[in-house]
C-alpha cells in the first residue's frame, strides 16, 4: 500500500487538537500552519467534490435528455407509421365503398 509522508506541523508539535495559540512561539506557529493546511484542504476538497458532483449531474442530465428525445423521436416515427397505415387502410375502405357504390349504381341502372 502506498503511503504519503510529509512533515506536518502535527508531527512537530504533537496532537494538534491540543495545541493552542499563544502557548509558546513554536506551538503557535505550528498551529497557524496546521490551521492554514486544514482550511486549504477542507475548502479545496469540498469545492472540488461538489464540482465533480455537478459534472456528474450535468452528464446524467445530458444522457437522460438525449435518451428521452431519442425515445420520443422513435415513438413519433412509430406514430407517423401508424398514421400512414391508418390512412392507407382508410383509402382502401373508401375505394372499396366507391367501387361497391358504382356497382350498386350500375345494378340499379338495370
Amino acid at each position, binding site marked *: 500500500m502506498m503511503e504519503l509522508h510529509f512533515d506536518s506541523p502535527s508531527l512537530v508539535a504533537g496532537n*494538534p487538537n491540543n495545541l493552542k495559540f499563544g502557548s509558546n512561539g513554536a506551538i503557535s506557529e505550528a498551529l497557524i500552519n496546521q490551521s492554514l493546511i486544514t482550511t486549504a484542504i477542507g475548502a479545496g476538497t469540498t469545492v472540488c467534490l461538489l464540482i465533480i458532483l455537478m459534472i456528474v449531474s450535468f452528464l446524467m442530465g445530458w444522457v437522460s435528455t438525449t435518451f428521452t428525445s431519442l425515445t420520443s423521436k422513435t415513438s413519433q416515427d412509430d406514430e407517423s407509421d401508424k398514421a400512414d397505415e391508418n390512412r392507407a387502410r382508410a383509402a382502401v375502405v373508401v375505394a372499396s365503398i366507391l367501387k361497391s357504390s358504382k356497382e350498386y349504381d350500375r345494378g340499379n341502372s338495370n
Partner: protein
Amino acid sequence: MSELVDFLNSTGLLNIDWRDAIMLAVGLVLVFLAITKQWEPYELLPIGLGILIVNLPLTGIAISPSESGGTQGAGIFGVIFHYGLSFWNILPPVIFLGIGALTDFGPLISNPKTLLLGAAAQIGIFVAFWGALGLNFFAADTFSLGEAASIGIIGGADGPTTIFLSANLAPDILGITAVIAYTYMAAVPFIQPPIMKLLTTKKERSIVMKPVREVSKTEKMIFPIIALIIILLVVPRAAPLISMLVVGNIFKESGVVPRLTSAASNELLNIATILLMLTVGTQLQADLVFRLETVLILVLGLVAFAAGTTGGILFAKFMNLFLKDKINPLIGSAGVSAVPMAARISHHMGQQENPNNFLLHHALGPNVAGVIGSAVVAGVFLSLIG
C-alpha cells in the same frame, strides 16, 4: 435530628445556586418558544426539557460512565451521551439515515449549478473557524484547533453534523455547539432576510428562474450512489454521515422497501431525535455554560451563519455574470443547509417581490448541496484534526 439535616442537605433546595436558576429559566424559555412560537419544536422542546432536568441539583442524571467509574453509577443521559455520542457517536448518523429517507435529490440533479452555491455557503464554517482561532491572539488558550473546528461547523447549519464533529473533536463544548446550532437554525427566518435584502437589489430578487427538467427515478438512484463512491474515496471520515444519508435516500427512491423507508424517516428518526436532543440539553449544565467561551461561541456561531448566507448570495451574483439564464441570488442563502427552512426563506423572499415567483424547488438544490458540503468539511476536519 442529624438524619433530618442529612436529608435536607441531600435535597436540591439547599444546593441550588443562581447559575442553576438561570439555566432553569433558559430551559423554560426554550420550552416556551418551542411550544408557543413553534421554533424548531422537535429540537428545542427536548433540548429545553433536558436543560431543565440537568440543572436541578444533585440528580446526577448526566454523570457519564467515565466519570462514575462504570455504568452503574452513571446517569441515564450520561450513558446515552457516552455511548450515543462521545464514545460511539451513533446518533448523528442515525439521524442522517432518516434525513436521507426524506431528502429529494431531484432539484439538485435538475439544476447542477446549484451545487456551487452549496459549496460557496460553506465559507461560513471557515470564517468562524478562523474567528475562533483568532480570539487566541487576544486571550491565550481560548480555543484549541479541535474546538475551533467544532465552532466553525456551526456555520454548516446542520445539527447532526455539528454534533458529530463536536463529539469527536471537542466533547466538552458539544452541548453548547449543538444548542447554538439548533437555536440559530430556528432563528434563520430572522438572521437571513436582512442579509438577503442588504446584498440584493429588488430587480435581482424578482428574477424568475426557468423551470427545471423533470428528473427520472433512475437518475435519483444513480446520483447518490455515485456521490457516495466519489466522496468516500476522497474523504473516508465522512462515511458515517454520507453513507447513512445515501442509504436512507436509496431506500426511499427505490420504492421497493416502503417499510424500511417509513421506519427510517419516522420511527428511527424520531427515537434518535428524542435521545439526541434530550442528551444535548443535559450537556448544558450551569458550570459549563457560565463561561466567557460560551458567549464567544454564541457570537462566532452567528458570524458563521451570516458569513455562509453572504457567501451563497454573493456567489450566486457572481455566477450571474456568466450565465445566460440568470439565477435568483436569493437561492444562494439556502446553501447553508438548515433544510428546508433556508429554502423556504428564499422562496418567501422571492414571493415578496413577485408573488408568482416560485423559488422553493430551485432553492432546495443548494440546500441539499449544503448538507453534503458541510458533511464533507466535517470529514476533512476529522481527517486532519481528529
